[in-house]
């Protein structure tokens, strides 16, 4: 059969396992493609290159496209149309990923492999890789789109290099694709380093406080990498091989003490990237200060690479059941509870730090750290629903956080500030951005009907059925803190009084709005019909050897309390309908009044005096918990800084010895791989 775009698309759609109703959509796409294939240019060049692409190993094709993106951005990044090109290329990567069909199909190894000193580096895609790669490329796609138009113009006008941005983004994507596809310890480490340095690049782009934060990140990342290197050395010492099969066997044969060491090394290394307590202090500033679109990418997916590592090693290879047998001496806790409690603290502490922020970017970045805790917590519970909830939250969180950060940076784009005390009332000027932020905060806070509710519900439920009351309370306290903090976010930006200087603010530019609105729709859909995302998660669970969640299109079936979002959302919408009927149908006609026509105890309001409550929004709560923070946080940061100094002092020495050779090796290897 001759390959043509039509057949390719057909295959892709078949790989997606879409419900029947999408046939019509497919028809429209097919018609469009037929027109393309009939054009002259296509018959001359297109057909050939397509056939070449089709003939490739799907995983290679994915890597090749990703590398091509990087290359093209390096060459053409300065061009004005580079943004659009990048969007197309990320779209192509997404298609390439779908064509690997490793989610529902069998794992697929890449044909490329590199052999260094008798050790071969190779890559392979399976359901887990697919899941994370999908989030990565999806985030890259929306980020590139967000950055493609007006945002990039402003970025250039500020005298910054568009090429550097495009390259950093492409490099991040490429690194992550390599990392999630790694099939042995060496390729894992190569990918890990690539990701670490790439995100440093993205963070440090704009200099100033961003560069400072990025340097702080670097200090953490280097020590994290050292820990991982140590873990790899430990495993290699026992297994004598970097292959995953050998590693699994080696871990099984390890003594408890060895597993403990491994756990601390690996856990510590990945925890740095994930921002687990107490290694979380670098993350907020590094993510918040990055240039807008970069911040979106970093916030949505970058830290999840740490979680990926934890999933592969701690959940996949060591296994939750092994963790449960590892008792902490002199306590009644097992290592699994220890990790779960670290996750719970990671939920609570950063969330309540977010509550104190008055910069919207920082507020969201701190929440990003906190949400990582839910994912880990769900995975540590380890039952079918809990681990599915943890995995699903990666996806739900990524779309949520991307939408939220995009909305905030759209406000920054228009008003020039993210200071929550200097905004207000923008809902009348940027209503669509408000809508995006609203969907985002409902999802982030984990309220129905948005996506975040489903995954958090699953985590709660597993904590209840597994009988973990304190962790459950901790998780809910985190959620409540999130609700408080996101209300402050939306209130201080969009509600309240519109400032005089913002009277003429316009809605966000179209190039930024489209990805924002698309993500909002996705947030709602993933909450309304969680089935598709659950089916991915179920595949990942199956591959990791976890119990598989009993999913249906609307959620989870379980006689002892399931969840059917289609029903819930349906009834909620019906309720809103009734509410609207009561409000609009049975009430007198209303008239909109000016914001100064407002109750002030008989006082006459004027435009030159702000009548707005924004600073120290939760004053009452802060009277109580404020002192708790100040003491413990200063102490924590100081002691960590001291430890870090010590560690970095030691690490620096080691790093100087070990790292450059390895990096050079890796770079040379990567070069060779594409040449051969």
């Amino acid at each position, binding site marked *: 059969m001759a390959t043509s775009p039509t057949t390719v698309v057909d295959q892709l759609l078949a790989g997606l396992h879409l419900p029947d109703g999408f046939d019509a959509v497919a028809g429209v796409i097919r018609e469009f493609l037929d027109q393309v294939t009939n054009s002259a240019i296509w018959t001359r060049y297109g057909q050939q290159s397509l056939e070449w692409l089709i003939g490739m190993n799907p995983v290679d094709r994915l890597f090749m496209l990703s590398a091509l993106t990087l290359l093209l951005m390096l060459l053409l990044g300065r061009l004005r149309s580079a943004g659009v090109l990048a969007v197309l290329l990320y779209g192509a990567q997404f298609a390439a990923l779908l064509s690997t069909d490793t989610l529902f199909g069998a794992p697929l190894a890449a044909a490329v492999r590199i052999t260094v000193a008798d050790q071969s580096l190779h890559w392979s895609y399976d359901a887990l890789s697919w899941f994370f790669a999908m989030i990565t490329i999806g985030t890259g796609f929306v980020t590139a789109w967000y950055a493609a138009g007006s945002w990039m113009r402003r970025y250039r006008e500020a005298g910054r290099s568009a090429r550097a941005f495009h390259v950093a983004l492409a490099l991040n994507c490429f690194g992550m694709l390599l990392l999630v596809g790694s099939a042995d310890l060496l390729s894992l480490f190569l990918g890990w380093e690539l990701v670490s340095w790439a995100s440093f690049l993205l963070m440090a782009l704009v200099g100033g406080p961003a560069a400072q934060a990025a340097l702080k990140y670097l200090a953490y990342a280097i020590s994290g990498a050292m820990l991982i290197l140590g873990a790899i050395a430990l495993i290699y010492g026992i297994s004598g091989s970097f292959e995953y099969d050998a590693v699994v066997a080696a871990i099984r044969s390890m003594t408890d003490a060895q597993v403990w060491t491994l756990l601390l090394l690996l856990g510590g290394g990945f925890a740095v990237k994930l921002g687990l307590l107490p290694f979380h202090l670098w993350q907020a500033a590094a993510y918040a200060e990055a240039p807008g679109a970069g911040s979106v990418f970093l916030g949505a997916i970058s830290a999840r690479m740490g979680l990926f590592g934890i999933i592969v090693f701690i959940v996949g290879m060591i296994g939750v059941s092994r963790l449960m047998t590892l008792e902490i001496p002199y306590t009644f806790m097992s290592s699994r509870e220890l990790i779960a409690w670290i996750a719970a603290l990671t939920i609570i502490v950063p969330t309540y730090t977010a509550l104190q922020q008055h910069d919207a970017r920082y507020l969201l970045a701190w929440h990003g750290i906190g949400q990582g805790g839910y994912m880990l917590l769900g995975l540590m519970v380890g039952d079918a629903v809990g681990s599915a909830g943890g995995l699903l939250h990666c996806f739900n969180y990524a779309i949520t956080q991307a939408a939220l950060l995009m909305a905030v940076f759209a406000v920054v784009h228009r008003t020039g500030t993210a200071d929550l005390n200097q905004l207000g009332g923008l809902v009348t000027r940027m209503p669509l951005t408000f809508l995006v932020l609203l969907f985002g905060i409902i999802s982030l806070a984990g309220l129905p009907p948005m996506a975040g509710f489903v995954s958090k519900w699953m985590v709660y439920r597993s904590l209840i059925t597994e009988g973990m009351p304190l962790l459950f309370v901790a998780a809910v306290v985190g959620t409540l803190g999130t609700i408080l903090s996101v209300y402050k976010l939306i209130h201080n930006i969009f509600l309240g009084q519109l400032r005089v200087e913002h009277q003429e603010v316009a*809605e966000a530019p*179209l190039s930024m709005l489209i990805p924002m609105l698309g993500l909002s729709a996705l947030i709602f859909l993933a909450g309304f019909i969680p089935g598709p995302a659950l089916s991915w998660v179920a595949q990942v669970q199956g591959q990791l050897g976890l119990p598989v969640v009993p999913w249906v299109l609307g959620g989870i079936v379980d006689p002892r309390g399931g969840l059917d979002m289609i029903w819930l959302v349906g009834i909620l919408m019906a309720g809103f309908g009734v509410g609207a009927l009561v409000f609009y149908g049975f009430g007198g006609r209303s008239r909109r009044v000016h914001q100064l026509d407002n109750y002030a105890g*008989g006082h006459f309001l004027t435009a030159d005096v702000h009548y707005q409550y924004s600073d120290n929004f939760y004053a009452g709560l802060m009277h109580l918990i404020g002192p708790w923070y100040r003491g413990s946080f200063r102490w924590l940061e100081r002691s960590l800084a001291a430890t870090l100094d010590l560690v970095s002092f030691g690490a620096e020495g080691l790093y100087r010895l070990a790292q450059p050779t390895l990096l050079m090796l890796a770079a040379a290897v990567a070069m060779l791989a594409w040449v051969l």
Partner: protein
Amino acid sequence: MTHIDQVPTPGAPRPVEIGVKPGTKRTNPFARVFDELVRFAQSRSLFMLHYCTGCGAVELPPAMTSRFDMERLGIQPMVSPRQADILLITGYVSVKTLKRVILTYEQMNSPKYVIGICSCTVNGGMYWQSYATAKKLNDYMPVDIYIAGCMPRPEAVIEGLRGLIENIRTGRADAWKDYYRRYDHYLGNQQRLFGADWQTPTDVIAEARHYDLFGPATLGAHTALLEQHQRPLEALEMRIEIPELMRRRSRSDQGGTAQ
């Protein structure tokens, strides 16, 4: 700024025909029943904003609490003007206070009723000669019921409220419409007292227009004076102005000419 002398003197209060306009007369019996029901509900549920300006305020606690218990009649105190139906002025109103009283009155949602308690609200009472008090409350806003006395006892207050309830139930308590229909008159009196640049943050004229409460004397010399210096008070309408789309539209408006 206009000098106070340039404020035209308001004419003598002209009686204005107030009532159901011919076009809105209900002939449908169900609608009549419905109107009756609504009027009944309105008379049996009165939220009261007590603007305790003068001595009369001390008579309210007994009227509200266990001795006389207004809640029996469906009357309960409320806090902000938006929630209230009754504005209770309990005694003398100084000029400074009157400004706030007027703002509060304008912020209330119609139908709204004003009750002047104490002789001071009727004619200035013992403050007749004071330079700083407003004499007749109904020069500045329509008053539904006056409860005279210096000060009236709670029984009298309750009696007055009962009178108001009766008026509302029978549809006679529509003094609030007078404020819209003869706004010029009230505004004139206010301007005489507060100066020509007097303005509240509420937009009575626009409201009258919106609710079709315009009358023959809504506009006049005084509203013209108001318009000279009035700060704009249009509501901040929600607007979706996506620059790219706006540009495209304006381009197509110009028939494809480049900008």
